């Protein structure tokens, strides 16, 4: 069944079907929030699933739009939650990939004006990308008259709990120069927190800046392809041998489809089976591409397939 399933079939699978699917894949890419953990709690059995996959010779990667932590902090979180063998190289966050893009693809010679949290800034620092100094603003600086740094070649926007009008105004000024790059870490309009609550995401800040500048940002994170290109560039992945497991249809599943991967929706996060089935019946190509090949209740279900 698993091998014969067509693209976007939305088939719920367990046990032997999962086993058959995993046998045909060399690489498994997991989203994090809502897939392997929720907040500070690992999804039941998730650490064991990762361990078993690696033991059975699979390559396991983590692909997350969450830009709030640098990779070194993600390693600590993995460890804290009981994942014993996850290394920095296995982790691909939108912050890490944005820095990689600026350094390796855009090859920015100059500074980047960053609207972003610690996670974003640390990754830029790690990548050797120069940022405009923050907090150089004296008492005379206001939204009506802010001095600009002439070396700014790019604007990067991501989740920023210190976002304010002044940052928006400054970024808008920099973006008046059409040569100045406009990047966003990810498109997520909101991020889920514990208990079904939400908080504004990078996407909402990007929307403000796109409206102000009348320009569209180049978005690094899922469902865009760049994060996969980042991984494939370092590890030589064959899309046909790869499975993407996520919890958000329009982010994770669409990403998988865009990159030619098999896709699996797990129901421990944002999207529901009902939504997936609605998308299946939709006329919109984007919605159709957001329908997963497979569905599992939770990645706990992998244990049965892996432990035999």
């Amino acid at each position, binding site marked *: 069944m698993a091998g014969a399933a067509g693209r976007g079939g939305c088939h719920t699978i367990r046990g032997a079907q999962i086993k058959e699917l995993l046998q045909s894949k060399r690489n498994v890419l997991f989203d994090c929030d809502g897939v392997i953990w929720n907040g500070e709690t690992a999804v039941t059995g998730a650490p064991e699933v990762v361990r078993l996959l690696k033991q059975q010779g699979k390559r396991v990667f983590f692909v997350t739009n969450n830009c709030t932590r640098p990779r070194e902090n993600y390693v600590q979180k993995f460890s804290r939650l009981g994942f014993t063998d996850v290394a920095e190289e296995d982790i691909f966050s939108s912050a890490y990939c944005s820095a990689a893009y600026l350094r390796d693809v855009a090859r920015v010679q100059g500074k980047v004006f960053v609207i972003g949290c610690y996670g974003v800034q640390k990754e830029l620092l790690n990548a050797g990308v120069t940022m405009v100094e923050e907090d150089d603003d004296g008492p005379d600086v206001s939204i009506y008259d802010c001095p600009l740094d002439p070396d700014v070649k790019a604007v990067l926007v991501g989740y920023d709990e210190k976002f*304010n009008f002044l940052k928006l105004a400054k970024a808008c000024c920099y973006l008046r120069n059409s040569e100045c790059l406009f990047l966003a870490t990810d498109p997520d309009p909101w991020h889920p927190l514990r208990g079904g609550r939400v908080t504004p995401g990078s996407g909402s800040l990007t929307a403000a800046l796109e409206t102000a500048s009348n320009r569209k940002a180049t978005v690094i994170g899922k469902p865009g392809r760049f994060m996969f290109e980042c991984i494939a560039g370092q590890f030589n992945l064959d899309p046909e041998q790869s499975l993407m497991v996520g919890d958000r249809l329009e982010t994770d599943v669409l990403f998988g489809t865009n990159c030619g991967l098999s896709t699996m929706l797990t129901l421990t996060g944002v999207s529901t089976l009902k939504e997936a089935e609605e998308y299946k019946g939709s006329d919109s190509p984007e919605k159709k591409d957001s329908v997963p090949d497979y569905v599992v209740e939770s990645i706990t279900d992998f244990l049965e397939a892996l432990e035999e």
Partner: protein
Amino acid sequence: MAVSKCARLSGASIGDLLDSVDSVLFDCDGVIWRGDQAIPGAPEVINSLKKGGKRVFFVTNNSTKTRKMYADKLGKLGFNAREDEVFGTAYCSAVYLKTVCKLDGKVYLIGSNAMRQELETMGIQAVGVGPDHISGVQNDWANVPLDPEVKAVLVGFDEHFSYAKLNRALQYLCNPECQFVGTNTDTRLPLEGDKAVPGTGCLLKAVETAAQRQAQVVGKPSSFMFKCVASQFVLDPNKCLMVGDRLDTDIMLGSSCGLKTLLTLTGVSTIADVEAHQRSGCPIRQEMVPDYYVDSIAEILPALQG
């Protein structure tokens, strides 16, 4: 109805147009003033219109001033104007919340003190004005204390806009019963000397994106601004002239409400913009083509003083 031809208003046609209307509605920024300076000739035009028996109204999307503050500014710049002739979005949003939303409760306000004052005048209490400093770690964001009496979120121009405010608005808007209103969608707020800062439209877009909800928008081109004026003064749309500098707000409002429309070139839109709309086959874009245009409203002065 013939497609608006955007005829240049001059000579005898000025007098003919003015004779055909009894009320003139003016946008402010880019029409009668720029920043803190009157457009040369504008005060004389307004004052002459009134002397000649026309009614004059001021209709602006700018939410940073109360009607009284606008009246003060108008007076300072030499315009004879009364407070009740001014319709800014701070005032009109308060009217909207009261009469259309029928709000019975408080408003979480992302906006100015002027907006808060206009709401209070309407008997509506606003919370949230001013800086809102972040505190705590990410998990606390969803647990910010919410005032149970808040029944609506209103977004206007706010230089204290911040992630904390965006978050608070989102938390309130997670309740589908909570109303969601925006003053306007202008992407830039014009300042003097051709400077501009990001406008309310940007802040509103951030909130709409986070909440995945669309706001009810009060300002031009929404017809509510005209309805607000018409509810207080008896107006016959056929005898009204809308004078503005933006095709997508002023002229669009005029067209959709059945008013005559006059574009002045002292502000945002250009003749090239008009021609682009004219050439397009799109009916909505045709609504943005004015009946007439002038380089500046000062051009109608000779017809008034003759």
